[in-house]
């Protein structure tokens, strides 16, 4: 075992069982999968992306490029999970990925043998011959070999949430800087949210042994967290990654139950937080960099600070004999810490000729072999699995060898500036610490601690405290800075160093994507020298870790090649998310049936009782048709419904239309401006059909508008355009003509509206209106609109309108009474065999009647195209009038609205068929228009259609070809009037 006998923030009393690649192991509560694997001496954990090289655990945090596993299984499988941040739970089951047949023996590791041919950009230069082999041979092979883990096998069974939070100060990161920032702001009374992605707050305080005041660092962290938790105005959110800074809000993901085998009942798996913070302080710490040298990717080569975390936080020795390779002081402190914790630290290799005497003395005292002015030039490993066994080194010009199963390396630290870049800020190179520090930060965000390049512990605490109190102070709170405890000084000397020249074997820069120093050389040679080009050509920094451990090394190596400075070379852009975020959480509970809310009509329950089949129409569910027992196909049902209406009477819920009440002195004048026809002259008690245009002259919507009183109109819009029209009218009133006295109120929800149609419609209506209400042809003439009562005192709006072409009425009652009205109409119409019908039958009848609808109001048609040219008033201005007069919209060759019937009446018409002149070739130049709507007309006994045909109205009687190759149809149709039934409207007026 590599578990140290004592120490660490793990709970040794709580032992947990877990599986990796089918084998069972044990770890402790407080472990990550990675620490538990190391404790069990599992070193080979994964395979790299391109060459399938054996890989182990490089880090102890979110920067991990190598130790990616498939966590859980089946529908809960989570590919590419970093073992280094996966919290151990009892029963955890993980498997290695990107290998076949097994992790130790992976067939595609043979890729490594041909690696010399697979340098950066090789894809672009090859696989072109023969051309057709790309899709059939090369690409499938590449796709199979690429990728990493496998997606889950089924529908994600877990629940996700989204939530909003508001605070004065958001502190991102709960290391020493963040704790002090939160404390300062919290004590001042500001509303503080302290978020940390780790499950244990404290940051490096849990990984590094230092004294703060008179307690060890981890105890200081725990005590400070406890104080923060006791403040009612502070909210601590662990397991919460702030992943992005957007305009005015921070995106964060809380992993509510990822540390459990499955979420508790009704508990979400993860929660998306959208945090509106007046101020934010980024205390995200820093990430250690590897050094680039041959064979630096073997299992057993690790970041020094991570090896230190394993020792101090998890009580795990990363190896049995640990050597260090560094260019900076922090690695030395790591070595001392680990030695003190009981790890066998053998050697400290430093590229620097000299190090601080105190460090050298300390090393000597601890019995660590120090090799300054020395570089690691290569590694050796086990034949299977490749784990590290030894190092080749070079001191001055002399080579040598060392045995070690672990190499802890440190090339220095890179502040976690990611979030500061989300608004386009560019990091700035700071020479003394050899690192990029934040440049311009997003509004309201400041940075403290290692994230800002402040590496000393005391300085970090001070900086956090100062920024916390400043943020609170700026927001009007009286803040005093917390007392700062004394700390030991942490030395941070560094000599910039990136890669070992002339080392043996591939020297990896980006370990996950297998980008080597040599690949950067190719990119340089081929001219891909700008960092963004280098990134895209080599894929450096494009893996799941987004180059956390590789970007700086990569650009520094390119800078060396070009001779430019690192600052001139610059970085690639950090983009959200800071750490990968599941798609499930971004979707929340809006999936399946809850993807979008469902709107229900007032008569939904009644229709369901009647056996209606429902159909999604925009957000609504509407009754499509009402099958009766024995009816096996929808057409039979719809034919029956249509016939019943035309023969006697039927009813349909039309509540989904938009309904807008307009009141005021100027409503008439206003309607004249928005409709192409005139409404100011409409008599009280009457309705009129109107067409409105967009300002560009194209038809926007149609519908009837009725005048209920001298200053009161009610407009109906199509179901689809209800929102759009309302918004348009408000624009006209608020922006274009604010002088008009008109107020709008949407009454779409207030009124349930049911249409009854058919020769017996009046008889039915007469039975539901209250006594004394005259619905005779005189009392309620065609296009009449009156307010009366029905069903014994229920307020109602009665309209005599018809979409179906039959004698028809629409009855609006307050929505609560909608269902009662449906039932009352059914009872009243029983004698006449009243038939509920759905929107299919409605569609059939409007097509028989030649009314336009959504298919014709496509946003591409002008009033002229649809036959409304004559309706347009020439006596007034209205929206769209000027632009409708453009030649392109007046062109007589534009497809215009007509009807169609099949020459062979047994043919079924299809909407979407194009029209071709008979004998003309089937090509675009001869395209004459298309069929917009079709229906089977039970009245005529064959299919009929509406459509737009070039010069259509002049071609009535002519035959054209209805060309529909996508459905295998091609036959002749006859152009006819769109009014298939009752062209003179006798039924309507009857």
């Amino acid at each position, binding site marked *: 075992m590599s578990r140290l006998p004592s120490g660490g923030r793990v709970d040794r009393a709580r032992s947990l069982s877990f599986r990796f690649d089918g084998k069972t192991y044990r770890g402790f509560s407080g472990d990550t999968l990675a620490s538990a694997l190391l404790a069990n001496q599992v070193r080979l954990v994964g395979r790299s992306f391109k060459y399938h090289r054996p890989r182990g655990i490089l880090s102890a945090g979110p920067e991990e490029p190598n130790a990616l596993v498939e966590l859980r299984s089946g529908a809960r499988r*989570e*590919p*590419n999970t970093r073992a280094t941040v996966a919290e151990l739970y009892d029963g955890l089951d993980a498997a290695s990925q990107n290998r076949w047949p097994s992790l130790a023996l992976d067939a595609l590791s043979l890729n490594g043998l041909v690696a*010399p041919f697979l*340098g950066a950009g090789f*894809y*672009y230069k*090859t696989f*072109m*011959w023969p051309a057709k082999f790309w899709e059939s041979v090369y690409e499938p092979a*590449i796709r199979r070999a*690429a*990728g990493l*883990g*496998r*997606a889950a096998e089924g529908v994600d069974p*877990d629940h996700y949430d*989204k939530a909003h939070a508001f605070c004065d100060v958001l502190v991102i990161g709960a290391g020493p800087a963040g704790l002090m920032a939160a404390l300062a702001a919290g004590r001042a009374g500001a509303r503080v949210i302290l978020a940390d992605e780790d499950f244990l707050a404290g940051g490096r305080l849990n990984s590094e042994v230092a004294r703060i005041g008179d307690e060890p660092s981890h105890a200081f962290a725990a005590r400070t967290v406890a104080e923060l938790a006791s403040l009612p105005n502070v909210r601590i959110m662990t397991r919460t990654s702030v992943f992005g800074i957007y305009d005015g809000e921070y995106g964060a993901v809380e992993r509510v139950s990822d540390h459990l085998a499955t979420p508790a009942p009704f508990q979400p798996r993860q929660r*998306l937080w959208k945090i509106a913070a007046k101020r934010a302080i980024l205390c995200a710490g820093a990430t250690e960099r590897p050094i680039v040298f041959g064979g630096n990717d073997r299992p057993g080569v690790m970041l020094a600070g991570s090896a230190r975390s394993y020792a101090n936080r998890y009580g795990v020795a990363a190896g049995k004999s640990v050597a260090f390779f560094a260019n900076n002081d922090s690695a030395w402190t790591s070595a001392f810490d680990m030695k003190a914790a009981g790890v066998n630290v053998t050697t400290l290799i430093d590229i620097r000729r000299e190090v601080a005497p105190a460090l050298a003395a300390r090393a000597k005292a601890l019995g660590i072999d120090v090799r300054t002015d020395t570089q690691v030039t290569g590694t050796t490993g086990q034949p299977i699995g490749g784990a590290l066994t030894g190092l080749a080194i070079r001191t001055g010009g002399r080579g040598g060898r060392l045995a070690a199963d672990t190499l802890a390396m440190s090339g220095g630290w890179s502040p976690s500036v990611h979030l500061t870049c989300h*608004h386009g800020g560019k990091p700035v190179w700071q020479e003394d610490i050899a690192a990029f520090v934040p440049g311009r930060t997003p509004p309201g965000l400041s940075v403290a601690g290692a994230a800002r390049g402040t590496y000393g512990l005391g300085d970090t605490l001070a900086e956090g405290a100062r920024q916390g109190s400043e943020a609170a102070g700026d927001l009007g709170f009286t803040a005093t800075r917390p007392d700062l405890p004394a700390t030991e000084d942490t030395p941070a000397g560094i000599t910039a160093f990136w890669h070992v020249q002339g080392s043996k074997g591939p020297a990896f820069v980006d370990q996950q994507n297998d980008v080597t120093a040599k690949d950067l050389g190719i990119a340089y*040679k*081929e*001219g891909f020298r700008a960092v*963004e080009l280098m990134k*895209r050509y080599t894929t450096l920094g*494009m*893996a*799941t870790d987004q180059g956390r451990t590789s970007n700086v090394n990569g650009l520094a190596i390119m800078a060396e090649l070009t001779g430019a400075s690192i600052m001139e070379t610059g970085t690639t852009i950090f*983009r959200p998310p800071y750490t990968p975020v*599941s*798609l*499930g959480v*971004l*979707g929340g509970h*809006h999936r*399946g*049936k809850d*993807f*979008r809310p*469902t709107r229900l009509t007032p008569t939904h329950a009644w229709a369901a009782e009647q056996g209606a089949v429902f159909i*999604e129409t925009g957000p609504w569910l509407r009754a499509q048709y009402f099958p009766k027992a024995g009816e096996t196909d929808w057409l039979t049902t719809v034919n029956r419904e249509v016939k019943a209406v035309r023969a006697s009477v039927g009813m349909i819920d039309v509540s989904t239309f938009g309904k807008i009440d307009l009141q005021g002195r100027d409503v008439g004048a206003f309607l004249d401006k928005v409709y192409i026809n005139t409404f100011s002259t409409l008599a009280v008690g009457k309705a009129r059909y109107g067409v409105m245009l967009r*300002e*560009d*002259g*194209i038809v926007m919507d149609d519908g009837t508008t009725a005048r209920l009183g001298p200053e009161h109109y009610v407009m109906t819009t199509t179901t689809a355009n209800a929102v759009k029209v309302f918004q348009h009218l408000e624009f006209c009133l608020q922006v274009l003509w604010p002088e008009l006295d008109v107020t709008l109120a949407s009454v779409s929800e207030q009124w349930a509206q049911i249409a009854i149609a058919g020769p017996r419609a009046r008889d039915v209506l007469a039975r539901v209106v209250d006594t004394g209400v005259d619905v005779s042809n005189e009392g309620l003439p065609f296009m009449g609109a009156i307010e009366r009562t029905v069903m014994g005192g229920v307020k109602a709006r009665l309209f005599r309108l018809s979409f179906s072409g039959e004698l028809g009425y629409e009855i609006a009652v307050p929505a609560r009474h909608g269902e009662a009205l449906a039932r009352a109409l059914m009872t009243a119409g029983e004698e006449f065999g009243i038939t509920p019908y759905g929107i299919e039958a409605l569609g059939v009848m409007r097509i028989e009647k030649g009314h336009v609808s959504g*298919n014709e109001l*496509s946003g*591409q048609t002008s009033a002229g195209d649809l036959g409304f040219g004559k309706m347009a008033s020439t006596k007034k201005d209205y929206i769209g009038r000027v632009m409708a007069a453009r*030649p*392109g919209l007046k062109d007589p060759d534009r497809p215009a609205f007509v009807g169609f019937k099949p020459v062979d009446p047994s043919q079924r018409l*299809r*909407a979407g*068929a*194009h029209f071709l002149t008979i004998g003309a070739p*089937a090509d675009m130049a*001869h395209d004459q228009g*298309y069929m917009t709507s079709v229906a089977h007309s039970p009245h005529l006994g064959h299919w009929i259609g509406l459509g737009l045909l070039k010069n259509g109205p002049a071609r009535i009687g002519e035959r054209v070809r209805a*060309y529909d190759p*996508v*459905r295998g149809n091609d036959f002749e149709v006859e152009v006819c009037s769109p009014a298939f039934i009752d062209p003179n409207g006798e039924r309507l007026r009857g």
Partner: protein
Amino acid sequence: MRYSFLSVLKNGFTGQSGWKPAWRDAAPKPAYDVIIVGGGGHGLATAFYLASEHGIRNIAVLEKGHIGSGNAGRNTTIIRSNYLLPGNEPFYEWSMKLWEGLEQALNYNAMVSQRGILNLYHSDAQRDAYARRGNAMRLAGADSELLDREGVRAMYPFLDFDNARFPIQGGLAQRRGGTARHDAVVWGYARAADQLGVDIVQNCEVTGFLTEGDAIVGVETSRGPIRAGKVGLAVAGSSSRVAQQAGLRLPMESHVLQAFVSEGLKPLVDGVITFGAGHFYISQSDKGGLVFGGDIDGYNSYAQRGNLPVVEDVAESGMALMPRIGRLRLLRMWGGIMDMSMDGSPIIDRTPRPGLYLNSGWCYGGFKATPASGWCFAHLLATDTPHATGTAFKLDRFRTGHLIDEKGVGAQPNLH
């Protein structure tokens, strides 16, 4: 240097030491016959076809950053010719044909991958609209297939067929559609143009125009003035800003469109799928990342980044369509600046300023147009007449009313 099996082999043995820059990093000369402003796909393709098809070699492509740093380098790589209107469809089909021969024409593997595109429909009206489109495609010589629900299920059994808010009824498939590797398209055109003598000048921002009377005779740049016989703009999202330097106001707004890539995965999505009941389209790159996107953010922006509502909307749509992706992780999101025209269709035309030509208005759909856009723009620049497939893309169509409005939403760019 030609790429061939042999050259790859040879470099494998020689430690990849023999490669030369894919294109020269040219310094600007004082004058050119033609200057193309904008080193995206369109600008580079224009230069290439001017050189290869029209024999004009004294050309510079001026790019303010590095080539491909604009939309060419940040799009979701979908190529297709499934357009509806006569002004568009033949042009996009011509583009498709050029894609099909691109690798051989450029001697560069741009990974044009015809794994198919499938647009899902969820209602009868949508089906009929797709039938109309599929038929239009056939009229233009393109391939299209109308699939029913079972046809879709056979292709992508893991879509939500059972519990969907807007059930999948079928789809319009174009098997010849697919993706191409966006950066490689840029690099391939650049390399091929460079080999024909075109100067590709990076870090050279056009800041104004040289004029003689009304005519444009060159450009001011961050690297000094450069004269030109003709100047062609192919600056995508920056069209208004550059045209404004010539005193032109365009029928254009710049909007941000976001795109997303997931962590790498073993093959899951073979072709391109678009959701018909929300804004979501997805494909999988050869590296394994799911590449997806949705609607534009919907407000004028030059910030090259977007906001969370669209991110959420895209994720909701993705989860509604393929509920097994819940545990996959989003790796990176970014934005591009779209040149949204007033009818959603492009402009390839002369401008009111003699000597100045315009190629813009590609909205979120110009990647697939890259070859044909370059071809037609080159034709216009070389001959002063529009190419046969691009005659409808006129700048004055807004004045005359000959609009090409595929979506039918009118003069509102954020809705196109």
